């Protein structure tokens, strides 16, 4: 029992330490934003890598998410003869929740882990030390461009995922429930308000920020050679996934408390 408590204590201490590192890195990254113009080329490179590299996964995920959403809700709504309203459900769900979350999950798996592996490998091969010895801040040189580019890429990808998800839903609505395209899209348009889009994009930005910071923090604190890089990568994926869900809840609750959804409806 005492051992269990000691382990829990050590885990909690470690978690607090890593959270502290991530927050310090966030503060340093914000300070490094003044070099955005100087690092513009690298930001564009990283942005291209994040969007282009994640495109196949996000497009497929979005298409099938919209399709599954339409199929699941359509079967229930059809019982009440309300299948024409599938467009409401799919559009609202995609833009408010599923689009940002699906994108974030894909980016956490693809880019967060990649950041941890890259920076972790650089750390164990003394490349990070070499930068520091040359008076080049790893935060300005490596972290800031990755954070900025992942946030930008996630915004672009979320918009794309929302559109493709709605289209996926439309295909199923038309083919399985005989809903006319016009009806589906008119309903989708009716339900969507500007604040739904903004709220979804705000979430996407926060998820990407969290994923990039977790990946970079884990990478920069890697020790123990190749095995250490593996551990950092694994921890990044797990923590990023959990953070996406926690942040999603907090942001949705926050929006609800501020009356964002009621005000716009």
């Amino acid at each position, binding site marked *: 029992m005492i051992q269990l408590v000691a382990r829990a204590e050590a885990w909690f201490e470690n978690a607090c330490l890593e959270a502290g590192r991530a927050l310090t890195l966030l503060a340093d990254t914000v300070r490094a934003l003044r070099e955005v113009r100087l690092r513009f080329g690298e930001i564009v490179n990283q942005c291209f890598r994040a969007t282009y590299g994640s495109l196949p996964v996000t497009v497929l995920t979005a298409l099938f998410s919209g399709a599954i959403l339409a199929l699941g809700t359509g079967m229930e709504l059809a019982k009440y003869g309300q299948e024409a309203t599938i467009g409401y459900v799919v559009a609202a769900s995609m833009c408010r929740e599923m689009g940002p979350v699906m994108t974030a999950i894909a980016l956490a798996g693809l880019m967060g882990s990649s950041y941890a592996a890259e920076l972790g490998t*650089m750390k164990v*091969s*003394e*490349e990070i*030390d*070499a*930068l*520091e*010895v*040359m*008076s*080049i801040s790893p935060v300005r*040189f490596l972290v800031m461009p990755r954070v900025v580019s992942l946030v930008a890429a996630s915004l672009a990808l979320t918009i794309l995922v929302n559109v493709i998800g709605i289209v996926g839903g439309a295909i199923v609505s038309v083919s399985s429930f005989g809903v006319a395209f016009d009806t589906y899209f008119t309903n989708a348009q009716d339900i969507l308000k500007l604040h739904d889009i903004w709220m979804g994009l705000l979430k996407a930005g926060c998820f990407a920020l969290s994923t990039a910071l977790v990946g970079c923090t884990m990478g920069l604190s890697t020790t123990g050679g190749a095995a250490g890089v593996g551990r950092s990568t694994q921890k990044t994926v797990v923590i990023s996934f959990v953070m996406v869900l926690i942040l999603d809840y907090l942001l949705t609750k926050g929006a609800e408390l501020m009356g964002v959804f009621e005000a716009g409806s």
Partner: protein
Amino acid sequence: MNPKPTIRGEPDEIQPSLRLSPASLAPSGPAVELVDLHKAFGSKPVLRGLTLDLLRGETLCVIGGSGTGKSVTLKHIVGLLRPDRGTVRIDGTDIFQSDNGRLGEIRKKIGFLFQGAALLNSLNVFENVALPLREHERPPEGEIRRQVMEKLALVDLADAAEKMPDEISGGMKKRVGLARAIIRNPEIMLYDEPTAGLDPIMASTINALVLDLQKKLKVSSLVVTHDMSSVFRIADRIAMLLEGRVHKVGTKEEFRTSEDTKVQKFIYGDSEGPLRRDASR
């Protein structure tokens, strides 16, 4: 063990040869001062009161068995590690009392050749060497090219400028690392095993470069190495570490003629007992 008095009231292991001559101190003191450094990793102490000075313009070779704290000492000099006790002064400035900006300025005076070269794998050879210039001085691109190609020519790698680090050998990486370390004409050079893993000809080339830098640029160099032939070629003074402290400091001649069995065993690579050979051969 020499019973003569020690300097700075440090442990007996510190030899009088550490004491700086008034002449060498006269202009502006040592380039680097390591003062009573203590460092432990977990429960394992690595440095246990290391005190050593790198004099201006000299080449000091630090030798010692594995785990005696040679590389850890280098990392303290550039502030990559913080000591548990003691401090490091560069040109008289305590680097652990300096803020990040000041530490950055101090680091600009230092060139560091890492054991594995530590080249950035995402940049090609040219970009690796150009990196410190592009990040700090930011001269026109033509000037960067001129300086980088000059340094690459110095390490005989002008032809490899466009290659990526994974396309070149370990020895070539080390030479690129050296070109990068000297691109900003540092006042102090730190070498971590500069000839390890190199063929004899390339090792000789690196040794010649170390000597050349000292001669032409009056660079103060601290070289951590196990390669005794290099030590006897390039060193002005030698410091031997043992159990995290300086065991002996002296000139090449003092080491060659030392009666200390530990010194003899180390410099002649004898695992059984002391051997007296002509180190110059």
